[in-house]
């Protein structure tokens, strides 16, 4: 469906976020992605999938409470659904260089979606007789997925769909605080991000503010692999197994875990979690690959 770029903001040296207005889009869920199709002057087309980093303005039946409404100047009656993508420029990429370095506010693109029902939060409640439910029984003693604490782990631009989840939680908490009839306060959420240097952070200020406003219900930790911030007690370096297990919610709390990043990052982290006793069916993964 046709979409228009209505806002764009650089995130760090290699990435930026783009807000699309998509009339008629169905409400998106945090963690979902869209397929973006670009068409060149000669009719050549290319399609790539991008995770949504904000879905809180995609449901126009809800009151506008999100930060993205303010950022994109939306809000009020008659507004069209908006979604935000966060894109990292890949050196050999075909679509990402355009989205990060060339696209301008007002440019048209086409989107298909939103897509995805597994790597989403709040988690999908599957029919009791569905093939998903039948083979993925809940671990003994675990709360229902929708009431479980949430651990998010992102490597590099893999943070994008996790940021959508943190924002969705904040919107849910705000709705619960404003209206006693709204669904209850959402479960606590932790986000662990691994990036190369402090300048490579995504959404650093906003995530810090959301954690600050959450009364301890949201925690955000950063790990830097190449260059640590001044005054940091941790030297730069890749996340280790022991550090990971120190920073994430323990398996005994049965957290619902979402891991997103490159295949090697996800494979390593998910393996450590399962070895440490996390139930494999509670570790949901999304791997970026291909250009």
């Amino acid at each position, binding site marked *: 469906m*046709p979409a228009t770029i209505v806002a764009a903001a650089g995130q760090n040296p290699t990435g930026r976020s783009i807000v699309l207005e998509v009339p008629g889009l169905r409400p998106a869920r945090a963690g979902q992605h869209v*397929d973006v199709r670009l068409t060149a*002057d000669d009719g050549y087309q290319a399609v790539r999938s991008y995770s949504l980093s904000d879905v809180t303005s995609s449901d126009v039946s809800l009151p506008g409470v999100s930060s993205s409404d303010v950022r994109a100047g939306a809000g009020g009656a008659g507004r069209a659904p908006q979604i935000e993508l966060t894109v990292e420029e890949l050196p050999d990429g075909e679509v990402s260089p*355009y989205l990060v370095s*060339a696209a301008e506010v007002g440019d048209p693109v086409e989107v298909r979606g939103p897509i995805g029902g*597994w790597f989403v939060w709040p988690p999908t409640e599957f029919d009791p007789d569905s093939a998903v439910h039948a083979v993925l029984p809940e671990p003994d003693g675990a709360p229902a997925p929708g009431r479980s604490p949430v651990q998010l782990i992102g490597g590099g631009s893999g943070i994008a769909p996790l940021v959508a989840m943190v924002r969705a939680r904040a919107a849910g908490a705000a709705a619960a605080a404003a209206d006693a009839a709204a669904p209850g306060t959402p479960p606590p959420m932790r986000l662990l991000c691994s990036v190369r240097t402090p300048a490579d952070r995504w959404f650093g200020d906003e995530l810090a503010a959301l954690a600050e406003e959450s009364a301890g219900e949201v925690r955000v930790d950063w790990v830097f692999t190449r260059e640590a911030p001044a005054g940091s007690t941790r030297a730069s370096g890749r996340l280790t197994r022991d550090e990971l297990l120190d920073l994430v919610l323990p398996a005994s709390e049965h957290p619902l875990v979402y891991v997103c990043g490159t295949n090697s990052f996800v494979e390593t982290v*998910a*393996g450590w979690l399962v070895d440490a006793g996390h139930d494999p069916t509670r570790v949901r993964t999304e*791997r970026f*690959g291909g250009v």
Partner: protein
Amino acid sequence: MAGFTGFGRRREADPRLPPGQHLEKGFPVLSAGPTPNIKRWELQLGTEQGSRSLSWADFQALPHEQIETDIHCVTSWSKLGTHWSGVSLDTLFDGLDTTHEYAMTTSYGGYTTNLPLSELLGGKAWVVDTYEGEPLGSEHGGPARLFVPGLYFWKSAKWVQGIQTMASDRRGFWESMGYHALGDPWREQRYA
């Protein structure tokens, strides 16, 4: 929709690429969860008229076929001219009669995917254990995965554990979440 300045043709079209696909030289990994730790591999095959269970040794003893073909992932990448070795489902189901028209595959780790039996039999599908002359790596579904190259690659279930025929179609894992029940890349059946 009209094109616009700034995005130009960057890659050559290839007639072997289905609509909306682009060429990938690596081999991206896509999995819904951790790579499962398979201690003892066994393959269960079943119809309404019987079942059989194959150990790894049983499976290895069956005749393997060499397959050269293209593969197409719903996330829009394709790989051309890949080489695989495995056992045809015609061989695996030989002697297991059925009037069913559908099958559900299950995998170690909990994944499921549904297919019409017509896409599994007749030389269209294998259980493969070798990719480019090497044992299939665990990230790519090893020790053995279903291989149905005529459909989007999510149908080629990694870590396959069982294939059970069924009288009517039910949706598997991704099919329960908006992906197409069949998934023919040439008809671009990505989403339901």
